[in-house]
């Protein structure tokens, strides 16, 4: 069976595309799939750092697309997680070195080799974005509960629909305390504007910073709430579609729980 190409995109920068790509990719590999995560952010590569594979880069996606090396040469195998491969971006080029035709050709080879191919799209909706969605069959749009991020996600969803790709949404960095106080948009508010299928909700988690800096895949840490959320998202993508979406909640003290039970607090 041919593999699926899933593009991870957002429009706005810094909402957690790279973290999500690395985490979902790792989680899908832990589920037993052959997974390739591809950094399409040519010139500003990050995915290798997040996965802690920076020191093993020899070839990159530009070399693959421009036929300077074979796919197997560029794919870096992760030693901690079986079946997880990284194809890094080139740091010295810019987004114009890739053409959509070249990416489509490489995508055909990738589909034969892997079950899931996750493309980490750059921020923006220019050439780099075009290159990463050209051969995608599915899309995951990451957004945070900010008005600006929702606005950009909305724009990107429109662009994806225009290319007949139906996107799913991940609402990232939810702070349940702030949502409860009404200081942050809830995922319902976000979905009301975006109205596409929800892939999952990810809470704000300090572990993300630690994992990113150490180059450890988030999903391998059992105490990470965000990591657990990404594992559930991966399971849902992998066919367990009836796995319910968990809404992040904050830990409540005994008195809060008690008053909740008694109906004083919502």
């Amino acid at each position: 069976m041919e593999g699926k190409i899933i593009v991870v995109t957002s429009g706005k920068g810094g909402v957690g595309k790279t973290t999500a790509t690395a985490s979902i990719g790792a989680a899908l590999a832990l589920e037993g799939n052959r997974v390739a995560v591809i950094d399409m952010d040519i010139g500003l590569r990050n995915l290798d750092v997040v996965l802690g594979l920076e020191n093993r880069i020899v070839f990159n996606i530009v070399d693959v697309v421009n036929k300077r090396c074979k796919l197997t040469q560029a794919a870096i195998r992760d030693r901690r997680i079986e079946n997880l491969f990284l194809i890094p971006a080139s740091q010295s080029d810019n987004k114009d070195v890739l053409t959509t035709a070249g990416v489509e050709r490489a995508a055909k080879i990738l589909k034969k080799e892997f079950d899931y191919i996750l493309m980490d799209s750059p921020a923006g909706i220019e050439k780099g974005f075009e290159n990463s969605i050209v051969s995608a069959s599915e899309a995951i749009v990451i957004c945070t509960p900010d008005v600006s991020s929702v606005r950009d996600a909305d724009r990107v969803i429109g662009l994806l629909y225009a290319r007949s790709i139906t996107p799913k949404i991940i609402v990232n960095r939810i702070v349940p305390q702030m949502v409860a106080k009404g200081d942050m948009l809830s995922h319902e508010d976000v979905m009301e504007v975006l109205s596409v299928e929800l892939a999952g909700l990810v809470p704000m988690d300090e572990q993300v910073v630690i994992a990113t800096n150490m180059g450890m895949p988030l999903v391998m840490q059992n105490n990470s709430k965000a990591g657990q959320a990404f594992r559930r998202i991966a399971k849902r993508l992998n066919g367990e579609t009836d796995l319910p979406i968990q809404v992040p909640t904050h830990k409540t003290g005994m008195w809060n729980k008690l008053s909740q039970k008694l109906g004083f607090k919502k």
Partner: protein
Amino acid sequence: MTIEMQPPVKLKGVGDGFWVTLDPSVSEDKLKEEVTRLFERLKHLTINARITLDTGDARGCENLIANIGTFLKNTFDVGVVTTPPAKRSVPLERIRQRDLSKGWTQHRSEVLMLRGRVRSGQRIKAKKHIVIIGNVNPGAEISAGGNIIVMGRLMGQVHAGDPDNEEAVVLALDFRPTQIQIGGVVAAGIDENSDAVAEFASIDKGRIIVQDYLKAEPFGNIPWPEVI
């Protein structure tokens, strides 16, 4: 600024006679002077000619017409002097009946009707009216030559009556646009957390005002349906 000068007397050949259009706001002497000037050029053609004296829509000019008529008969030996036949006026009742029965079958109203969600970055433009069944997200732009009706939540930017139709209205079931423009008047949306009630915006004394649609009933006083 240019002022269009209409000659007080106009002369036109009609069938076997002449049609003379008079401007009743000009004095009788001046009119006679002008008529003389024009009729002198016609020479013998005026003898026994049929003359129709027309004062346009002005009323109460019977005296003026009679005076000019006798003047023409005496000076230029014209034949019969008449006034234009009264326009056949259709009784108001009949206009209503016709409108009620089939007024809209004759017309083709140009409406762009869409359903679904209009997203940020999308721009919808139509020559006349736009109806959207669905929501308009912030960042979306809608521009119409006529009215804009949103059967849903309006949160984007709208421009009705583009470019200068100040009669246009914008109506939405939940009215909270980021910016609204009607004709040439612009207003910023106000972010009030009001309940979702159908509201509409229109121009009143050069400013855009927003009112509760069901309370204000802007079209409630139009007695029978008309095509827009």
